[in-house]
């Protein structure tokens, strides 16, 4: 049975300018047409025709960029705001962790705040009295519960808020990005509690940017983009689609930047880019392009992907001493990899006229980030014909969270005495 039904919901925000308000106020006083004249100057569509159902006992994730309408969706479901059109039906008691500790009064003690907050979330005084110790213990605030809330650190504040909200014992729990601010010891506790909720077949609506957690705990995921539901599916597909969209956007950003660089190179490399390109160009690198192994030009790669570096070269004379080389640098300027034909013992014979040099990297195996590419042709002794320093860039984007410079291929295994749950990952990690 569906406990949350969102049917074709649209939510439009209207903005009124101060000037307009004044006119409205004037006309309200003069003509008395108060409600009619309250017209907006700007309309923002936060949600557009969103429909979905959340079945009882399932965990439903909502992902999307900032401003895609996630929080508005939660507000509509809790009833804090009403949809402009469409229907929302919710069966059961809802607890909203939209903002932890909203409504705490700084001047009074934690104890009193627990009571007031609890009542606001729909508990009776008796219920709170019964759960009070649990709440305080979970928040680890036994010593401070009688101190005014203004003396709490932001972590204590948040712990108390979370503890109250989770102890309300709702049928439906709404979680909005609250785990983002927790410290290293509290977040796992929260996740434990959420798991406990799932085990007890309660319904959870989980809004987060933490895709790994979404993937781990959600049964179905909705991806919102600009207020529209892009996809509702099992987590893997939705997250993939979302990541792809982000990558596409990054790529577009990147390409426009790339384009700029190319233009600059053509126009004014002599002036500005001297240090970025040098050599007398007896052999000239006329163009460098980055491609997928299939030959499609691109700038955003995943660590598992391969890359094709293509150099269009030209030599006006017949030259017998030449070496082609590449180098990959990360954004801190660390050389992640460098090689050339000489160090790999290719023996040059001659080059004349136009040609193409291709270097295929079968698997990039780098961590996330932006990388810069050197391309060069020089003599064996190092005399440069044409040296391009960091003129080309590409990006590695993935859901991995590993650190370092490179990503050696790896896998984990454990002897039978060690019990450890493998990730429910869409791709085996590593």
């Amino acid at each position: 049975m569906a406990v949350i039904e969102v049917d074709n919901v649209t939510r439009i925000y209207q903005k009124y300018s101060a000037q307009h308000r004044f006119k409205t106020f004037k006309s309200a006083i003069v003509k008395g047409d108060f409600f009619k004249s309250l017209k907006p100057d700007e309309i923002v569509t936060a949600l557009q025709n969103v429909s979905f159902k959340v079945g009882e006992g399932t965990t439903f994730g909502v992902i999307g960029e900032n401003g895609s309408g996630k929080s508005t969706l939660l507000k509509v479901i809790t009833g804090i705001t009403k949809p402009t059109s469409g229907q929302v039906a919710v069966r059961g008691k809802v607890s909203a962790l939209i903002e932890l500790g909203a409504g705490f009064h700084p001047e009074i003690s934690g104890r009193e705040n627990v009571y007031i907050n609890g009542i606001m979330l729909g508990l009776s005084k008796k219920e709170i009295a019964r759960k009070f110790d649990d709440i305080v213990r979970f928040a680890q605030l036994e010593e401070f519960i009688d101190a005014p809330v203004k003396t709490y650190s932001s972590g204590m504040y948040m712990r108390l808020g979370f503890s109250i909200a989770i102890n309300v014992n709702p049928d439906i729990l709404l979680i909005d990005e609250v785990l983002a601010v927790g410290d290293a010891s509290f977040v796992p506790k929260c996740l434990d509690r959420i798991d406990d909720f799932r085990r007890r077949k309660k319904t959870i609506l989980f809004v987060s940017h933490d895709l790994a957690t979404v993937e781990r705990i959600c049964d179905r995921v909705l991806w919102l983009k600009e207020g529209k539901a892009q996809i509702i599916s099992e987590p893997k597909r939705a997250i993939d689609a979302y990541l792809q969209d982000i990558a596409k956007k990054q790529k577009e950003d990147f390409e426009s930047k790339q384009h700029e660089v190319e233009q600059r190179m053509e126009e004014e490399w002599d002036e500005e880019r001297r240090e970025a390109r040098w050599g007398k160009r007896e052999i000239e690198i006329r163009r460098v392009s980055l491609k997928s192994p299939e030959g499609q030009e691109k700038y955003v790669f995943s660590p598992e992907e391969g890359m094709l570096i293509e150099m269009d070269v030209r030599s006006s004379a017949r030259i017998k001493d030449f070496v082609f080389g590449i180098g990959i640098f990360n954004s801190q300027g660390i050389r992640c990899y460098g090689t050339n034909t000489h160090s790999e013992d290719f023996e040059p014979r001659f080059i004349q006229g136009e040609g193409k040099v291709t270097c295929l990297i079968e698997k990039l195996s780098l961590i996330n980030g932006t990388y810069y590419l050197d391309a060069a042709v020089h003599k064996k002794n190092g005399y440069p014909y044409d040296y391009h320093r960091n003129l080309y860039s590409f990006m590695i984007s993935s859901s991995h969270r590993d650190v370092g410079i490179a990503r050696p291929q790896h896998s984990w295994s454990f002897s039978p005495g060690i019990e450890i749950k493998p990730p429910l990952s869409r791709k085996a990690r590593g």
Partner: protein
Amino acid sequence: MLRILNNLKELFKYRILVQNLVSRELKARYRGTVLGYFWSLFNPLLLMIVYTVVFGFIIRPRDPAFEGSPWLYALFLFCGVLPWQVWFASSSLESANVLLVQGNLIKKILFPVEILPIVVVTSNFIHFLLGLPILFVFVPILGKGYTPYLLFLPVVILVQYVFTLGFAFLVSSLTVHFRDIKDILANLLTFWFFASPIIYPMTFSTIQEHKWLNIFLNLNPMTHIMQGYQNCIFFGELIRWKRLGVTFLVSLLLLYIGYSVFDRLRDSFPEEV
């Protein structure tokens, strides 16, 4: 109308919240101050002293009701200044702000927002109640006696409660859309203070001689409420049932209008505050 009744039913479920918020309000206000709740009486006391000095001692009360005594005049002042300043004026000013100040709550938690102005009016009402014993102590000191008409005080208080609440609903919801109301209100209250018989009695000869002034003052609902207090405490006579009755009806109407406007604008609060 039906919707309002439904809302009232919903509101009843939240009475414990109102109770807790009021007590929180009272506690929070005095926590951290040395003199505690006397601060809330400080302002009306100061006002009273200033008016007593100026009108009682310097100008001298001319109305026969005061028998030429500045002390009686001081008591008369106290009867009006206490409910006006401690209860009505503070409630109005605070409720103009309350939705904006508690914006975070409105945006994040689902609860009947009308609780907020109710809490404002109620907690100021309790301040007023806490000030009443002081007023009673002063009655014999300043030269008057207690009369059985004091028993009618709750009637006057009820009328003022309804009136203040209606006004609070109106002001709090409109301020969300027109922030200027906050500033207009502060000035309006000064004007209103002098347009109510607080520092002068309605029996004052100048008022009685000017027909239009008399009518104007009588159209002000607060006139009758203030007179109610003065009748019960100062003059020791029966409250004017008819006038207070009409005022009560006007107050109920204001409450209805205030609540309707509030209800109508309710959906816009989360995005506007």
